[in-house]
């Protein structure tokens, strides 16, 4: 994985959720602000940032920053 992608997604997540993220893995279960309401906000922000579109199953599969990174990396690779 591109370490810069992780950094960009981490920064975006922190910006949308208005939180300071501790180093390491971030999961929806461990972060109260990443609730179902804000999940769509995160998805929309990611879509705008990377000019891509996530489908329903992709959105619902994301339970952590790592998942998000996997989905976005896959989309970017497919588009390349």
């Amino acid at each position: 994985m591109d370490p810069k992608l992780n950094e960009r997604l981490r920064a975006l997540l922190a910006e949308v959720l208005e939180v300071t993220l501790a180093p390491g893995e971030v999961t929806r279960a461990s972060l109260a602000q990443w609730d179902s309401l804000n999940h769509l906000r995160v998805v929309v922000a990611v879509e705008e940032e990377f000019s891509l579109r996530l489908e329903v199953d992709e959105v619902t599969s994301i339970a952590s920053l790592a998942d998000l990174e996997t989905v976005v990396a896959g989309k970017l690779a497919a588009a390349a």
Partner: protein
Amino acid sequence: MNLSSGSMAGGVEDEIASWQATRRFLATLPRAADLRKARIRGGRVLRLRCDRSLPFEYVAGFLDPFLATWGARHEIEYSGYDPGLTGVETRSTADLRILFLDWRLHLGQLSPEDAARWARTRLQAALRAGEGRAPVLINDWPDCDALNRELRQVVQATPGALLIGAHAVAQEMGTDPFDARNDAVSRFPFSNQAAVALARHLALDLFPPLTGERIKAVVLDLDDTLWKGVLGEDGAAGIRVLPGHQRLQEKLRRLKERGVLLAVCSRNDPTDVERAFAARSDLGLALNDFASVRVGWTPKAQALGDIARDLNIHPSAMLFIDDNGAELARARAAHGGLRILLADPEGAETAAALGHFPGLFPVAADVAAALRTADIQANREREKLRGTAGANLAAYLAALKMQVEINVGRRSDAPRLYELSQKTNQFNLGLARISPAQAAEAFGAKSLVMTVSLKDALSDSGLVGAIVAAVEGKVATVREVVFSCRVLGRDIETLALWRFCGRLAARGVAEVRFAVAEGPRNKPARDWLARILPEGTQASLALLTARLQGAQGHPAAITEVVHGPEAE
């Protein structure tokens, strides 16, 4: 990004760049990503309460960048998700209440007529919970013509209720407002751009007029604003009316039809301007569409003051549009609160920005709209008559051949009473600023409402004033004395109060108390009452009537009609 105040540390060039950005922001629907990055702090707080069966949060997240254009931001309290909207009965001190409904949940079970009838009960409950002061907004639904038609009727028949035009917003976007992915993920059926467009509709169209931010007059420069080119150099034949200018002029014409006054403030030769309007058939406006025309070599900041006096409004109720940033800066420095818009010399962006300029959206039909421009133009003739009469006020009043129509308890005047309460500043004694619901309630059995219409030899001014009192036993508390500034100087308000005393006497009232509030601009009303009752704000009806005896000699022809129970 504030249209009326604030200054940039970087000087006029930075200010101009900021005004260009603001114009573009108003003229085009911003991207969600751009709004997300905006951080808004400070400003007047609008308190909202949202009862919903849809997640309004996606819309609310985009409100503040739009609100910031008129110096506001929002705080919001939410109900739980409840298709039945039982939470609307919760008392709230919110400034505005929003009912945000997923109409798909209802239309499967109810006909559009029944759904709208149910909406009426929820609106009425929300209005009661807001004690009639907080307007209640309810959304319609894109591409649901039958429901939307029914909802419009319900809202029109419910004072204090307003429609959030989701259908109109979707039509203006021109793209599909729905997003099945968002719906599946979060039960939010709209696209991100539709969420932005709804936020813009709320924050720029609906909220400003509901919270006192109203623009009464649009003042325009001419060269490179209303047309392309410089009249003094290019001549009437040389100036160009581009498609953008045609759209702008059409938009201005529609604003005028809705009651917004138009004025011209231009550094030009007056004869050149008259010739240009006469010669150019492609101009969508005639010179007499403008209630005030100030053309000449007077500095514009000074001319704007003259226009404010012509129109008898405060400069803070005016929007000044000019292509010259330095002129805008000087105008704003001279007139606190003046709204400004940097004109696009091609016209197109100016026209588009006016479409969502805060304070210009018509939230309610303007009852007096058709009469206003002609009445203000007639005021110039009145000034000439006044000058001719010299110190003889009676001769001036007689020369006007005034006809005053007084109506007592006419319920159909409630919308105009609301307008007068909200819009008048100089002659507004109590500054009660009543809501539409309160205006309707004022016609109840424990109140006395008198409305006053005026015509004279020069124009029909329409319904120009009202007096409202709560009557309890032998005591009347006068809560509203409101008169349009267009009719001041003709002693109509004194005449009306004298007649009002007659009605109070018929109700057995012995004592009259006036609710008086001190506002920044209502000194004329307070001084008027102080001249009648120098000893205070309450008096016996007998004393008050005696002080008003002089009104008997007023030369106006008066008709008085009593409606409803008062007539019996």
